[in-house]
């Protein structure tokens, strides 16, 4: 690479591979994951003995873990495509970690398979698949009249065949995009700088439509996997709420990765305060957008006050759930917002990492509020049971195992893309660009 035009430019080290401590992360993640697994199994037995809901809570918590890691993998793919279209030095900085995120899809797929196999324990529409079965359930009081009506009315969409078909198609589409972007990135590396304009166009042409395809497919899956847990309710902004939450989660996670990697080469040379600050600002924008959409949805439904919509919120506010949504508001918005407002925190490595770790946790807490009140035993009735602690243990274990796999993906290729004009810019000292 030619850096002769700027005598103050920094030099990249010869070895661009991931530093050795990534292996230590992997080992630590596996150990913590194993501990969480043991706790999850014990809680399953305890919960089963207490109220017979131990394993069903295990499964619900599994769904949360699936959605959490899915948000990272697919959201990572989406942000990868966004940075190819938008350009910018932050994009170069995050490119390899985002590629590694997109290559964790196989883990997410196995996670999802479990929820798909046990779909009849999670989704009413998967349990009562015919009009007759629905009528029986209504007669024996397992579901109410509204649910029976919705199940029958929505059956053309909410049925196991459609669920499998659409989910598998979505996984195939994401895998295709992840594969295409990842293999082309290596091909780009093997060629000289004269090919750069071609590659910039090429990646833009793949990513632009890819972002659109991603928005549609992720909306479909958010609806099938989470929203349909309550077959009576619907919200047109639901896909967008998940999309923005993925941006929130992925940005927080990639900031943690970039800053943690900067303890060793090559990120030590690569990560400047300017780009760290930019990423902090971007994360702040997602914090804002996230509360904007969530509150917007609430305000519209609250204003309408219609019996078919408002119950979804009442299930999540009454019976002690008000405590959870208040905490959710504080965890998910107030704390990240107040922290990221500060310029000093955004420019401080250690503090920014703390805020971002909090954001990754807050995303899971938010999904607890989304998922658990869908079920009859929990709606408008938040109560302690051993089973409910599965929401800590199971997603914790799943996240750790996923993280270990992510670390192995991070090690498979150099962390810096050399065939990119942004590289020369990012190696310049910070004031020289001004």
């Amino acid at each position, binding site marked *: 690479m030619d850096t002769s035009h700027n005598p*103050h430019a920094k030099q990249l080290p010869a070895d661009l591979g991931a530093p050795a401590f990534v292996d230590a992360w992997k080992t630590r993640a596996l150990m913590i994951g194993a501990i969480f697994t043991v706790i999850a199994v014990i809680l399953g037995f305890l919960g089963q003995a207490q109220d017979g809901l131990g394993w069903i809570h295990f499964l619900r918590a599994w769904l949360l873990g699936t959605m959490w890691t899915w948000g990272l993998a697919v959201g990572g793919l989406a942000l990868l495509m966004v940075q190819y279209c938008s350009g910018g030095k932050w994009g170069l900085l995050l490119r390899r970690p985002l590629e590694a995120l997109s290559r964790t899809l196989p883990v997410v797929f196995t996670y999802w398979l479990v929820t798909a196999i046990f779909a009849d324990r999670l989704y009413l529409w998967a349990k009562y698949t015919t009009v007759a079965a629905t009528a029986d359930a209504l007669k024996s009081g397992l579901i109410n009249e509204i649910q029976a009506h919705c199940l029958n009315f929505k059956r053309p969409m909410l049925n196991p065949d459609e669920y499998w078909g659409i989910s598998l198609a979505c996984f195939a589409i994401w895998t295709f995009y992840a594969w295409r972007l990842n293999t082309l990135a290596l091909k780009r590396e093997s060629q000289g700088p004269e090919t750069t304009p071609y590659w910039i166009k090429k990646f833009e042409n793949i990513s632009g439509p890819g972002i659109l395809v991603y928005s549609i497919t992720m909306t479909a899956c958010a609806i099938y996997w989470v929203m349909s847990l309550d077959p009576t309710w619907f919200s047109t902004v639901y896909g967008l709420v998940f999309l923005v939450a993925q941006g929130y989660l992925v940005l927080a996670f990639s900031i943690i990765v970039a800053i943690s990697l900067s303890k060793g080469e090559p990120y030590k040379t690569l990560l400047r305060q300017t780009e760290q600050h930019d990423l902090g600002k971007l994360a702040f924008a997602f914090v804002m957008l996230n509360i904007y959409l969530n*509150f917007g949805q609430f*305000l519209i439904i609250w*204003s309408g006050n219609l019996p078919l919509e408002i119950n979804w919120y009442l299930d999540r506010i009454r019976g002690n759930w008000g405590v959870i949504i208040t905490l959710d508001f504080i965890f998910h918005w107030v704390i990240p917002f107040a922290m990221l407002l500060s310029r000093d925190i955004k420019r401080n490595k250690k503090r920014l990492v703390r805020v971002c770790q909090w954001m990754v946790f807050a995303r899971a807490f938010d999904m607890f509020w989304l998922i658990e009140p869908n079920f009859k035993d929990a709606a408008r009735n938040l109560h302690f049971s051993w089973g409910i602690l599965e929401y800590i243990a199971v997603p914790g274990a799943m996240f750790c195992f996923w993280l270990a796999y992510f670390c192995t993906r991070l090690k498979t290729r150099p962390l810096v893309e050399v065939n990119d004009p942004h590289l020369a810019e990012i190696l310049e000292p910070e*004031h*020289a660009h*001004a």
Partner: protein
Amino acid sequence: MPAREGTYGLLAEFETPGDLVRAARQAHQDGWRRMDCYTPYPVEEAAEAIGFHRNKVPLLTLIGGLLGGGVVFTLQTWISVLAYPINVAGRPTYSWPAFIVPAYEWTILWAGLSAGFGMLALCGLPSLYHPLFNAPNFRDGATTDKFFLCLEALDPKFDLIATRAYLAAFKPTSVVEVDY
């Protein structure tokens, strides 16, 4: 205030922001305090080089935002609960979700106005006169493509001959003396 007379300071002109920042950082290290940088566009590093690590604009913005949001939320509460209570679809008169949107907008509005006007006020603007406009190269270059460092005569270290030599050591394009 009587008109000041005499030398305002010595103005060094640089071609690149990098040169300006290096010179400013060195001068600040050498104990200069009455000094300023002038650039055609914001160069944050130049502000940091002369010791401007923070300013009061964020604080003003925060206060403005909190005031705006608080004022309009209180206003709506007062109207709906006390001054003119109306039954809207059977909701309680204190229906806070409905108050959030105007409160949010006013937070942004007041924060934005406080940031804008606060910045102008803290910069001492509007100002009708500044001695540096006496320097022709400043008039021509400060808003287009030149970068300036001014060491002011009010600084106790200032000495017309020695300071000119000091500035010349940074190899600027020119050093000119500016009168009030």
